[in-house]
């Protein structure tokens, strides 16, 4: 039995030995390097671009600008349904007419080395006419504001109005209202983006190394932009050092680098450097919630009334408006609240465009909702866990239809026993146990966040499984892998069903050349979608092997069994044949199992090979989780220390407990970064002021508290055969909420702790301070 076992990840050995092969490890003969010249202005008209001097520099092969691109080139399309038509805000590979954010591509310089390309970039003469930068979303909505795009700065306004919020507010015994801000920050994968495009002009074939996440989708987008056939492009995912939602989307460079390779008929490589990364990668989060939560005298939450403003940056990219969309769809969380209203606005500004970052919309909504619930509990004089307990969705109410939808899919919680997990979580943490409120002058506080994390979204996933004559199993997966451990968990599922040891199963992924269709990796979907595709294909292989053995040995199929990697008949001591033997017999041309002759060509056996595609279920699978934290606060300085942290969650079924725990702990680390440290800041001119890791702080080992993960398998997902739920985003999702609640609790703060990141200054502002006090 391989499912559920804590196998050490099969990927780890090569990474720990330094034998991983990342995009920058790939090189091809005659390869040249690319550098992107980016806008230094947040908002400016481009009067002219002169490239003569740059082209004259020895070692420079080409300088491409917007003039070199086809005049009918479409913008980069959004791959997800949006609220309303956002096509006026899509981005072209190069700025057209004006620049709209610092970092927007203006030109691509191709040279023998990256250093020469950067020297040449300084020789490109761009004549700008600076315009007023739009940096504040609320100012962007005023009449007087400069326009980022002709169509106006308000890209979309939409929402939900469920039940009767107005009456609920009028009749409420208690309400609490506040504004909650989540700062702009984003994924900082250890490996930045990179692409190596190689065009074979003679055969009109293009290979691209470096794409990840959604390689088939990106391949199709590129084919359409280049006017090539989809099968003429192969995208190959090497080892990838992290994505977290941001890496692997289709960016301007994903068009420009292949374009340059085609134009020059040479391999072109571009490796994003960290400074570029800060300005070029999708930013995320950046939103403000105005929340009113209402309750009756018994502590039943009767309404959520929410306004949401999300700063989208300068363009709508491939993710569309999915971040505010998910936030709006899931705002009510795990509570049975039927009166829910949200008025959401998506606003364009002169900042880097935005996209998803691990737990998109959820980290944000959970912070706003759970802080507001603590506020309400304090106002009611009701214990904070008790208020939540009285409002949790009950197991008999499953599946729970929230009544909302995101990306045209209804928000449904398929299964779960929220009260049971809630009780176990609070007991394990010792939530109700008394604790010292003060330690050596520091104040201690306790906080929690209850949440539901949707997982396993997306239309479909596929795998092909091939067994060779030595009984080795190859899984060709349409999912990709950016470090999550998919090579291990997918192998575990095949290992279990085909009864072969893990060492005999290999997973290949992220390559459009190895499987025709692929969904990709996002939305905590691979365990569910990829996993069930492996389940289906493995089951298919098993049936095919048994069926062939039945024909070969003349026993009824129901008397045959697959175990220990071999076909057995009844209680006999020896197997009839190994899985490898069956693979050999099923090879085309093999005489051991003859196919029935017919006129003309005889259709032959097609190997012990099965391709399976599984279709996604709208609802996906809902993970219920409770985050709990004890935090110390220095009331003199606002310094904070997370003392201990626990995430309790019901994942339905664990494929690999080590990977589940790693996902949770790593996710909490990222959540702590977003809670305390990470911020992409802009000044009034629209300059990004956090341009290096000296300014953009990420948590390091000193900042990590002990994290306990408490993982339950109480409520298997009802929407997939394996019963698994996605665990990739449970870790970060509730951190700001739990930690913020703990800090407010420590300080007995009745206001504040509503703006992230929770810097020492912001923490102390919650209780007010006087200079020199």
């Amino acid at each position, binding site marked *: 039995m391989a499912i559920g076992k804590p196998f050490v990840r099969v990927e780890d050995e090569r990474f720990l030995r330094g034998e991983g092969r990342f995009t920058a490890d790939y090189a091809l003969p005659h390869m040249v390097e690319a550098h992107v010249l980016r806008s230094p202005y947040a908002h400016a008209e481009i009067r002219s671009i002169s490239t003569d001097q740059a082209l004259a520099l020895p070692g420079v092969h080409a300088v491409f600008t917007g003039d070199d691109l086809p005049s009918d080139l479409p913008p980069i399309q959004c791959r997800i349904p949006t609220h309303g038509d956002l096509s006026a805000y899509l981005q072209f590979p190069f700025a057209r007419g004006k620049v709209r954010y610092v970092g927007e591509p203006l030109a691509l310089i191709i040279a023998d080395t990256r250093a020469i390309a*950067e020297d040449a970039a300084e020789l490109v003469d761009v004549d700008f006419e600076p315009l007023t930068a739009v940096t504040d979303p609320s100012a962007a909505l005023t009449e007087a504001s400069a326009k980022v795009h002709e169509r106006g700065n308000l890209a979309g306004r939409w929402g939900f109005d469920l039940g009767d919020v107005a009456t609920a507010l009028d009749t409420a015994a208690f309400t609490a209202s506040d504004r909650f801000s989540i700062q702009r920050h984003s994924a900082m994968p250890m490996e930045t983006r990179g692409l190596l495009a190689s065009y074979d002009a003679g055969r009109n074939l293009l290979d691209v190394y470096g794409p990840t996440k959604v390689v088939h989708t990106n391949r199709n987008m590129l084919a359409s932009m280049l006017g090539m056939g989809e099968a003429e492009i192969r995208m190959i995912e090497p080892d990838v050092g992290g994505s977290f939602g941001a890496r692997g989307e289709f960016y301007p460079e994903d068009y420009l680098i292949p374009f340059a390779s085609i134009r020059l008929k040479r391999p072109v490589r571009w490796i994003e450097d960290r400074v570029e990364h800060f300005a070029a990668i999708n930013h995320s989060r950046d939103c403000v919630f105005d929340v009113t939560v209402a309750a009756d005298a018994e502590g039943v939450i009767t309404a959520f009334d929410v306004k949401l403003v999300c700063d989208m940056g300068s363009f709508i990219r491939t993710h569309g408006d999915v971040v505010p969309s998910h936030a709006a769809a899931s705002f009510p969380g795990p509570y049975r609240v039927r009166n829910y209203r949200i008025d959401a606005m998506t606003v364009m500004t002169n900042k880097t465009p935005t996209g998803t970052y691990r737990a998109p919309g959820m980290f944000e909504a959970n912070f706003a909702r759970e802080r507001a619930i603590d506020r309400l509990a304090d106002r009611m004089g009701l214990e904070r866990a008790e208020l939540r307990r009285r409002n949790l969705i009950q197991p008999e109410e499953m599946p729970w239809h929230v009544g909302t939808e995101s990306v045209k899919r209804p928000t449904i919680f398929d299964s779960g026993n929220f009260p049971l997990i809630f009780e176990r979580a609070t007991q394990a943490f010792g939530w109700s146990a008394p604790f010292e409120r003060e330690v050596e002058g520091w104040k201690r506080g306790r906080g929690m966040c209850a949440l539901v994390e949707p997982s396993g979204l997306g239309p479909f996933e596929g795998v092909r499984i091939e067994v060779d004559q030595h009984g080795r199993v190859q899984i060709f997966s349409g999912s990709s892998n950016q470090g999550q451990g998919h090579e291990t968990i997918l192998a575990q599922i095949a290992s279990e069903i085909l009864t072969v040891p893990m060492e005999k199963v290999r997973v290949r992924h992220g390559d459009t050349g190895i499987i025709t269709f692929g969904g990709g990796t996002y939305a905590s979907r691979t365990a569910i979608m990829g996993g069930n595709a492996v389940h289906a294909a493995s089951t298919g292989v098993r049936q095919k092997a048994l069926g062939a053995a039945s024909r070969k040995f003349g026993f009824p199929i129901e008397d045959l069994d697959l175990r220990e990697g071999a076909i057995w008949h009844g209680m006999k001591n020896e197997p009839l044949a190994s899985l490898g033997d069956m693979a050999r017999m099923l090879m085309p041309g093999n005489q051991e199992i003859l196919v029935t002759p017919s006129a003309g060509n005889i259709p032959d056996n097609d190997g012990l090979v099965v391709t399976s595609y599984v279709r996604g279920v709208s609802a996906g699978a809902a993970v219920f989780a409770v985050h709990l934290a004890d935090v110390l606060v220095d009331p003199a300085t606002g310094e904070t220390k997370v003392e201990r942290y626990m995430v309790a969650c019901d994942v339905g079924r664990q494929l690999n407990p080590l990977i589940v725990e790693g996902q949770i702990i790593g996710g909490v680390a990222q959540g702590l970064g977003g809670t305390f440290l990470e911020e992409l800041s802009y000044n009034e001119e629209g300059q990004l002021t956090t341009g290096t890791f*000296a300014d953009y702080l990420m948590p390091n080992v000193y*900042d990590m508290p002990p994290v306990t993960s408490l993982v339950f398998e109480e409520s298997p997902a009802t929407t997939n055969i394996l019963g698994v739920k996605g665990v990739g985003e449970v870790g970060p999702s509730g951190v700001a909420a739990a930690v913020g609640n703990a800090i407010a609790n420590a300080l007995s703060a009745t206001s504040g702790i509503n703006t992230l990141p929770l810097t020492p200054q912001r923490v102390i502002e919650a209780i007010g*301070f006087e200079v020199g006090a």
Partner: protein
Amino acid sequence: MKPAPFDYFAPTTLDEVFELLSKYGDDARVIAGGQSLVPMLALRLARPEVLIDLNRIPSLAGISEDGGTLRIGAMTRQARALASDVIRNRLPLLHQALWNVGHPPTRARGTLGGSISHADPAAETPMVMMAYNASMVIAGKDNERIVEAGDFTLGTFETCLEDGEILKEIIVDAPRSDEGIGFAELSRRRGDFAMVSAAARLRLNADGTCADAHLIIGAVAPVPLRCDAVAQALVGTEPTEQRLREAVGLIDLDSFSFDNPEVSLAYRRHIAPTLAFRALAQAAGKASGLHT
């Protein structure tokens, strides 16, 4: 993130350094541990025509003690200084402060002289040198001069080094062994730029009254602030908690000037007395321990 082109020299003697400096003048920069300059080169914020690498001049690195006088070569690595028994025993305030200087990888390359010459207002080492009243040995082609630590830093990234000069060595008279020290710092993340830091030295008389005290506050103004009013108020009195709290009330908050959205002037003024108190209390506690 590739530096603009430059010529690179790696001299092995100081004479060669000064020759190169006089030949290239303003176009040249010396590079020590490179922990600040290399990122600036990569970002093309610094673009010298010529880079003179000091890493191959053995005489510039090392820690020696002669009687009560310590000499620290400017190219001594921060990690080396942190691991040095001599520094830990004789200049414990420097030892303590070095824990707050960057991170292990940056300390492995970064040098004491480089950090002091870079003159980042949030840097810890210039504060410590001020607290110790260290002497900075500045060398040029034909001359050598000594400047007190308090006169070395002139402003943000600004020192009294003239063209053609480098910081060669730091001389510190080791304080009496019964002195207590304290260092307190608040930064967003351990090892990062301080929001406010405070360095203290304190010595007690036999009767428990304060014989001598020094307090330096960093990261609040272009140069570290020496708080002599606080020190003087403590001398002759017993450094009780209440006394220390009163004394830190004498910090000249008006001379603070740094103000950013993330770390406001008001916030710096608010927390500076707390950090100063903590540094002084640590120092007083240690001094009293050394007495008994």
